[in-house]
């Protein structure tokens, strides 16, 4: 709860951002420093994913996790990526003026930044002295993080006896790194680590979309999602739900942009984020399959060229996920997926699960009217915009929705209820609502440009 702890978190997250930006430099280069600043949010989340994936594999191999290891990983990762970038001929970024904004765009951007910034500042104060209340956090997420911190690895007792023994360790690793950065197991200030992740996610969405959509579509989309009743401070709960959602949404957005401009760095970054998702929560595998599957369908016409690339993305995500699965299976832990994948479940439960998912998605007391706005944007995109983009997001949304229903009906011990203590469907549906923040502006901008040629803001 001290200034020293907060300073430690600032340094750690700057390290994550530097790692991610270095990876982006190697993948795409930055001609201007402004481009690096614009993609700093994406760099932050990319750094968190890369750090978490690398350390998951290292912990499975038995490498001790400590302060020196954290610093070494970040320094070596940053230096290695920068050297790789130079060897690949990436230019040194320079300070240069980019294309200017119109007065309207400038005003809307200023208003959007101010309103989002004010909200994030309020979230910071709420998180600053927040006690650890969430039951899943103290039941298993934070104990696992404490175990990584105290015992420098995947302590068998804690990781196999705690609830959710198959849940992947990326979040506990990030939490443990935060403990090292704070100088103690400060589970109060730990909430600020999740604030940094939220700031990174908002900055990543804004930075990625900034050049592709008008400001008057970008900022209302971000704001309308941030103010839904279910989010707010819950975005800062020290559990893995929001992080896996953010990895999924950013990867889905990068792939959507790749479908438009085929810039390979977007796929590479999406692969790292999806690998992070598979090691953050079990549904990360489902999300990765959804994104890759939707991209396969959307790129059907160019499958000879694109499918091998998408196959490589899937391979990276799956390969990252395997060692952790081997680790817990070697310790006789099972239960990540239902034995028969839910095929033996009766039709009644299937219908009930679908109805529950639908009820939760359109529950205005949770998500306001954001799902309706998402559908309206989807319809506009499909009717008047880039139909491939519309089809891609329709498949991502539909498949992710069905995935949520599958989780409910395939685990027979999960009751058909929106009670969050008994069924994860409300937390799961948060991913679809966060997806709206990325998809709505792209879909609407595509429809908006329909009558104006292909001009970009």
């Amino acid at each position, binding site marked *: 709860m001290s200034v020293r702890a907060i300073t430690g978190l600032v340094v750690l997250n700057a390290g994550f951002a530097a790692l991610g930006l270095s990876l982006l430099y190697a993948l795409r280069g930055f001609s201007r420093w402004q481009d690096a600043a614009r993609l700093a949010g994406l760099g932050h989340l990319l750094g968190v994913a890369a750090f978490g994936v690398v350390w998951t594999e290292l912990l499975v191999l038995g490498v001790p996790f400590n302060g020196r290891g954290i610093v070494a990983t970040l320094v070596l990762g940053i230096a290695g990526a920068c050297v790789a970038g130079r060897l690949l001929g990436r230019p040194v970024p320079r300070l240069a003026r980019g294309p200017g904004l119109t007065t309207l765009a400038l005003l809307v951007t200023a208003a959007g930044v101010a309103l989002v910034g004010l909200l994030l500042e309020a979230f910071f104060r709420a998180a600053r002295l927040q*006690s650890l209340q969430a039951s899943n956090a103290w039941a298993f997420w934070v104990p696992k993080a404490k175990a990584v911190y105290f015992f420098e690895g995947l302590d068998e007792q804690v990781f196999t006896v705690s609830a959710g023994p198959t849940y992947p360790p990326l979040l506990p690793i990030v939490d443990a790194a935060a403990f090292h950065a704070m100088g103690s197991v400060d589970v109060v200030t730990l909430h600020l680590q999740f604030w940094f992740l939220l700031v990174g996610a908002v900055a990543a969405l804004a930075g990625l979309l900034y050049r592709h959509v008008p400001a008057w579509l970008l900022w209302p989309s971000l704001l309308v999602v941030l103010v839904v009743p279910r989010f707010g401070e819950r975005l800062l709960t020290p559990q893995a739900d929001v992080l896996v959602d953010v990895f999924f949404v950013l990867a889905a957005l990068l792939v959507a942009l790749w479908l438009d401009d085929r810039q390979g760095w977007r796929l590479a970054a999406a692969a790292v984020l999806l690998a992070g998702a598979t090691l953050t929560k079990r549904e990360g595998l489902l999300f990765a399959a959804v994104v890759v599957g939707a991209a396969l369908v959307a790129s059907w016409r160019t499958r000879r060229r694109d499918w091998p690339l998408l196959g490589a993305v899937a391979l990276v995500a799956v390969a990252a996920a395997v060692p952790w699965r081997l680790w817990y299976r070697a310790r006789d832990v099972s239960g990540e997926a239902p034995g028969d994948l839910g095929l033996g479940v009766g039709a009644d439960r299937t219908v009930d699960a679908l109805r529950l998912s639908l009820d939760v998605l359109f529950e205005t007391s949770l998500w306001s009217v954001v799902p309706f*706005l998402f559908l309206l944007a989807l319809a506009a995109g499909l009717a008047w915009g880039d139909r491939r983009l519309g089809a891609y997001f329709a498949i991502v949304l539909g498949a992710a929705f069905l995935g949520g229903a599958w989780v409910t009906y395939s685990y027979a011990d999960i009751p058909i209820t929106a009670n969050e203590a008994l069924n994860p469907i409300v937390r799961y549906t948060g991913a679809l609502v966060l997806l709206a923040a990325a998809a709505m502006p792209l879909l609407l901008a595509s429809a908006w440009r329909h009558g104006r040629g292909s001009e970009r803001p």
Partner: protein
Amino acid sequence: MDPRITGASRGDRLRLAAIGIWLALALAVIVVRYADAFRAPNDTARANAALDLVDRTLGGGNSVFPDQGLMVEARGRIPPDGAFQVAVGDAQPGWTDLTATFAETYARYFLLPRRAEPGADWILCLACDRAAFPGADAVWEGEAGLSLLRAEQ
């Protein structure tokens, strides 16, 4: 207006109407919801600041243990490389629905790096049967049947 004059087809008008409706709805939601979304974290920040250090440190444990002293004493007395066990007896007045069910789970979290082990010298006793721990002395006793026992070395 005649579309032939404006140059806008019916499809264009529909397109612009759809985008306009989306924007109007989104702005309306932001206007209606923003104040609440801003107020809620401010209220939380005030409530958090009003908590004392023990309340804040225990967090969810306040809903599990009727007496904060057990966790505080256990953390203070059991050495970091020590071990403990949790023994739960019949529910007592003052216990919550979570006490018997989640006492061990919470203790495992809160007391790490101290480990939970059967037969450990330190016993977190929640109205437990003390006869099951012959030779163990209470080093701390609190309310609602909670005590911290230590078995003979």
